[in-house]
């Protein structure tokens, strides 16, 4: 993660992993056969693109220059600057923004 005042180019933003989905497999097909349609056995992580989409709508996406303005205390959100606008982004999400460190303040 970038330090305060550092900037770089966004390379990628990883989607969140969320929720379990029934995994195809013996116990699940077994469950389904007996009408337990919602029977969940095992986990398969599904990608959540919602936050990535919301960031893109704000102009925070791969290829743009991003600067970390400051970080909130106690593991709070990160303030970033993109294209002259400033946003605060929750730390969990901010950590999924992959940045290539560029030159400082050009």
């Amino acid at each position: 993660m970038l330090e305060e005042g550092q900037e770089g180019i966004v390379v990628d933003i990883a989607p969140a992993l969320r929720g379990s989905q029934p995994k195809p497999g013996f116990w699940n097909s077994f469950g389904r056969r007996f009408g337990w349609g919602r029977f969940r056995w095992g986990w398969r992580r599904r990608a959540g693109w919602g936050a990535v989409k919301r960031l893109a709508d704000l102009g925070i996406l791969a290829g743009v220059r991003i600067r970390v303005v400051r970080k909130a205390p106690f593991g709070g959100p990160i303030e970033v600057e993109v294209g002259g606008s400033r946003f605060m982004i929750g730390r969990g999400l901010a950590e999924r923004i992959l940045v290539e460190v560029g030159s400082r303040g050009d």
Partner: protein
Amino acid sequence: MGISRGAVEKIQPDIRIALAGQANVGKSVIFNQLTGLHQHIANWPGTTVEKAEGTLFYKGFLIDVVDLPGIYSLTHFSLEEKISREYIARERPDVVVNVVDATTLERHLIFTLQLLELERPLILVLNMMDLAEKYGLEINAKALEEILGVPVVETVATRGKGISKILDRAIEISRGGYRPKTLRYGKEVEERIKRLQSALAGIDVSYPRRWVAIKLLEKDEEIRRIVGERDPRVLELSDKLIRELEEIHGHDSSIVIAYERAGLASQIARGVVKLGAPRRKSIGERFDELATHPVLGYLLALIILIGIFFLIFGFGGYVAEFFEEDLSDFVREVWISSLGESALSEVGWSAVEGLLFLLGLAIPYILPLYFVTFLLENWGYLARISFLMDSLMHKAGVHGKAIIPLILGFGCNVPACLASRVMDTWRERLLTMLMATLIPCSAVTVVVMGLVGRYLGLIWVAALYAFTLLMVIAIGAAASRILPGEAVELIMEMPSYKNPNLRVILTMTWFRLREYFVVAGPLIIITGVVIKALEILDLLPIISSALAPLTARWLGLPSEVGVILLFGILRKELILAVLASLMGTLDFSEVLTANQMITLSLVTIFYIPCIATISTLVKESGLKNAAAITAFEIGLAILIGGVASRLLLLLGIA
């Protein structure tokens, strides 16, 4: 400016304008400049999202203006977004006015492109042109007009510059013959849009077909449902196309489209904006270093929050006293001398008392509350508090801004519920309101101090409060897990500081105060009258004995408490007064044991919010949610009271 206003609401307007734009672009300033005092604040049908509407006369046209909620996108993410896109697509306003911040044109263009897809006549308003000039930005409005095919108007809304030009252009394009350009995406996406569009040709959807095709590729659930009902084969085709897109790009198709749009916006912006000298560190930025400082920032926040607290409850206390004592005594004398003392006049008097109570609530407390929160929001400081408090408030399942309503809750739950408006999503608003109504307000404090504080000592009061706050956090955390919808990750704009526009803030305050009267007033007055009638008809003992199993058996309290709690619904301060008059003594240690005092205090803290709070909840969250919160809190109070009474017995406190 040549604008005259009129509140003629029955007549069909000549032109209907919808204001759309992101938060912090000065949209509400423009709305207030346009409509002045001819506004009508209500909720969007079936929701509690605020709808501001106003009318004006301009050059012989009656123009109706609707201020759509401030949103960042037109997806299906939040209720505000859904409302906005449904309004534009189905109600089909004659002109959509898209207000953008000229200093950050590129990012706002992403939203503009989404609006263009809805194919309504559009005007692009570049607001804050003064700031753009200060930052050395040159925007070629003519070129932008060419590219987008829509009129572009430059404004400085805070100084009223360019406002009449918006109206001129609106009249012009509402006469028809207007056609915005269709902006094309990259080849891979565009091809698939075309294929879906032609597949949609035979289907009747009430939206533009190209827009539906794009939304299908974005996997918009609502549109998928609508199309699926009409022709499932189109859905199959779109699934196939989505898979193709995802294989090419390796991203979710909604991201592919979002990136295409952002790319297009960036390309347009680069063509029309010329960057000047880089901006210097502004005063706002220096202040920000203080406002978000790990130590000084919290100190400043504390000072401001305490300041607000004392402003509202200090100032409010004086004014409320006037309404409830001096004015009330005076009106009471007039009432008695003109109507005499009879059962009927007593019932009538309770209605007057309710009205005075409402005034005593609205003018000293709610008015300054609205004013201060609008001021802080308009100025931009609320976002900083959110930034600092976020990790703290996260433990209770909400974002940082919730600290404001929660602190106000210690004074009175009513402004606390109203202040929950600062929360961004509906889910968080509800959570904050639930927690705020559990915070012991000043009236509850009077009861707790008068019973536990006076007879058992302050240590017990502190223990009760610590327990209550833990419960509030625990309930918040639990409810945030139970409530549908996931806790969204914080993505919030950090607006630059602006000089608060007093006129706008005052108009906003006034119209919301007026709406408060309309919604909360009847409920408060009717409840007062009903309880008075019960008293006069001598039905109170019956209620007491009906509640006895609960109050006497489960809670171990004197059976008269049933009536006392009933009066507490009106106002919790009444609990001590009614207790004294029913028990016939002011020394409560004669009639209540230590155990009973603590139990009664706990029940007072948690049970039913008072009627003023309930009516505020109805206004802010709808009848169903208000009923659910009230029922939950009654259950909680009964549970906690009963368990506490037994636990205390085990500890040897009888």
